[in-house]
């Protein structure tokens, strides 16, 4: 059995000087991202041990508020908190007072009354995480707010890329699909640009946000544009966000024919990523999803350690957006 170092008192989480949140990648500095990735790496090493639980956040409470369905994000946040010995509580919109018409403010105040250290929120409306941050005293983690942001997804994607390529700077990532409705794309573009990676967006013209180039990326409506990339990041065609009769694309069949990522459209050695859940046969060919070059399961594993790093960082490290004095190695 590997030895577990008992943490000294001065390494236990101190009372945070001010409330810090993870609401948007736009709030992070490059130092913040590098510190989070380093922390995630050290957690990955600790998870290789037989005894996977760390005492780091013992006595802390993490509340998960999920107003949208989620498998990987909610499960990985819950497991991340448990791996760090925090107490967790999960509230879903259905089956709670939300069903009775309780407002987000009142639900947040109610849960806030238990003095949770962290509230993780997933909500269908843009600005929900910012709103909860304004009305409670907890540290808030945005686990997806409408089409706006999904910062922990972007961080786990960076972690996956860093582990695969050993670097982020200069990597070329093509993001393919429904960029318009994708919080994953928005967070990822910002995160990749922060670390000096190159981004090309490939989508049918109506699914590319107007003026999105201002985020520092190239755009194309030709699937051939993925050819130059090191990584092809495939977005889900979000059927539930495609308004009836909105006519972004004539049909999913036509989308799949022109923009579906198939083996024929890939170069040997190109890596494939997808945030899940996949629509096999629509945005991604099943042969691509199951190929050796797909990093999709790696992403899921990265989700756990990245979310552990986020929880740990919020409760222990200096303010987000402020230059870190040193990288923190734990365990």
């Amino acid at each position, binding site marked *: 059995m590997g030895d577990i170092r008992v943490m000294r008192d001065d390494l236990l989480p101190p009372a945070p000087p001010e409330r810090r949140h993870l609401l948007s990648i*736009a709030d992070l500095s490059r130092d913040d991202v590098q510190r989070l990735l380093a922390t995630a790496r050290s957690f990955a090493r600790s998870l290789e041990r037989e005894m996977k639980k760390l005492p780091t956040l013992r006595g802390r409470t993490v509340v998960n508020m999920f107003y949208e369905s989620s498998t990987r994000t909610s499960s990985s946040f819950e497991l991340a908190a448990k791996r760090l010995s925090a107490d967790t509580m999960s509230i879903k919109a259905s089956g709670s007072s939300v069903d009775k018409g309780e*407002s*987000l*403010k009142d639900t947040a105040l109610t849960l806030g009354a238990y003095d949770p250290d962290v509230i993780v929120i997933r*909500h269908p*409306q*843009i*600005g*929900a995480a*910012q*709103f909860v941050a304004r*009305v409670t005293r907890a540290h808030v983690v945005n686990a997806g*707010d*409408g*089409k*706006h*942001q999904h910062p922990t997804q972007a961080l786990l994607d960076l972690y996956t890329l860093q582990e695969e390529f050993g670097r982020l700077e200069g990597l070329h990532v093509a993001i393919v699909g429904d960029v318009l409705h994708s*919080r994953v794309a*928005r967070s990822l573009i*910002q995160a990749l640009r922060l670390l000096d990676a190159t981004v090309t967006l490939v989508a049918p013209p109506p699914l590319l*946000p*107007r*003026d*999105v180039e*201002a*985020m520092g990326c190239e755009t194309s409506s030709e699937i051939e544009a993925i050819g130059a990339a090191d990584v092809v990041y495939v977005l889900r065609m979000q059927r539930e966000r495609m*308004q009836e009769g909105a006519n972004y694309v004539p049909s999913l069949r036509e989308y799949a024919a022109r923009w579906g990522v198939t083996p024929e459209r890939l170069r040997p050695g190109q890596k494939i990523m997808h945030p899940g859940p996949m629509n096999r046969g629509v945005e991604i060919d099943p042969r691509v999803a199951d190929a050796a070059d797909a990093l999709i399961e790696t992403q899921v594993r990265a989700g756990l350690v990245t979310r552990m790093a986020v929880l740990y960082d919020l409760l222990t490290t200096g303010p987000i957006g402020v230059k870190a004095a040193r990288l923190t190695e734990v365990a």
Partner: protein
Amino acid sequence: MLYSTAAPGENLIIRGARVLDPSGNVDALLDVRIDGGTIAELGARLDPNAHRLIQAEGLTLAPAFVDPHVHLRTPGREDEETIASGTQAAAAGGYCAILAMPNTDPVVDSAAVLGSLSEAAETEAEIPVGFLAAITKGQGGAELTGMGELADAGAAGFTDDGRPVTAPGLMRRALQYGAVTGLPFAVHCEEPTLSREGQMHEGAVSAELGFTGYPSVAESLMVERDLSLAAYERRPIHVLHVSARESVEALARARASGVRATGEVTPHHLCFTDEAVRSLDPNLKMNPPLRGAADRAALIDGLRDGTIQAVATDHAPHARHEKEVPFEAAPFGVTGLETSFAALYTHLVEPGLISLETLLQRMSSGAAAIYGVPAPRIAAGEPANLVLLDLAASRRIEESDFKSRSANSWLLGERVTGKVRLTVAVGRVVYEG
């Protein structure tokens, strides 16, 4: 028609202010004597006699403001605003007259609803208020209201504000038939299939934040349609809350070709851009949305050169709990009556983007002309409609400041310069601060 409580005019001497009436070419340090609510004399060291003396050295006395676009939320949402609270808020903002929009519950689409409002105004309106009536029944965009009857009942004009008249054929009929009323028509220009689900201006900021865009063209396309219809029917038309550069350009072209078109612009569109929405503060959500820097520049140019004649607050009160939600869930609309002058003085006059004289004209006589309200003037024989301004006073806008029943101000927490010290409306002091 304007309605307010009947009260005797006061006897006042306002001493030593810089009297500034751009339309009357007055700009001098003068005393102003008001006898029984009427301006009697402008001169040096006037004898106070039995008049109430108001010391105004260091302050600026201007014609009071007129707001052509206010939502009084009555009937239906008296928790958000009433005729009493809305006109008190207007008085605090330096206004001597306001025009109320008909998108209430029920909609002002019948003489009965209009009559109940004008009656209520006669007992509770602090300053004169005019009521616009709807163009279509229930603002449903299908059937014209009884415009003749509404005109006879005292409507100030017609609009479906809050919604466009979507069908061009119906808009044409409204302009044709509306001619018999002789009243102004005001249009909310929004092409609904282009603005659908839109939360903010479409551009680089919406791309980054993920909001569904409400593109400029959703407005300007409808502005061009309504200007074309007005030109074809040879009827005047007023474009409400112009927000896009392309709309200003369309308005300028139409005016140059002889169309009797007017336009108004809000303080928030003149002061802020879509960059402000990055805060995700629901008090920055309104329809039309805050637009880009080029749009803001075009609006300022348009206001300066007279393509746009009036500042209109589009004062839109909302209950606190309705705005205490994520941005995407919040209703459109912000308040503005009590902050308009300070906002524009701070953001336009102080940085030199527009002169104080032009601003005062666009907030007063320019706005009055749209609905045929007599222009406030500082001259002997005129009814006293005056605002006394402190151009040096600086303050932070706080939620507790407001007379309005709602505090969904886009300026909360902002520091502004310029304060209304006194408002006189039809000869009566209606606000002192």
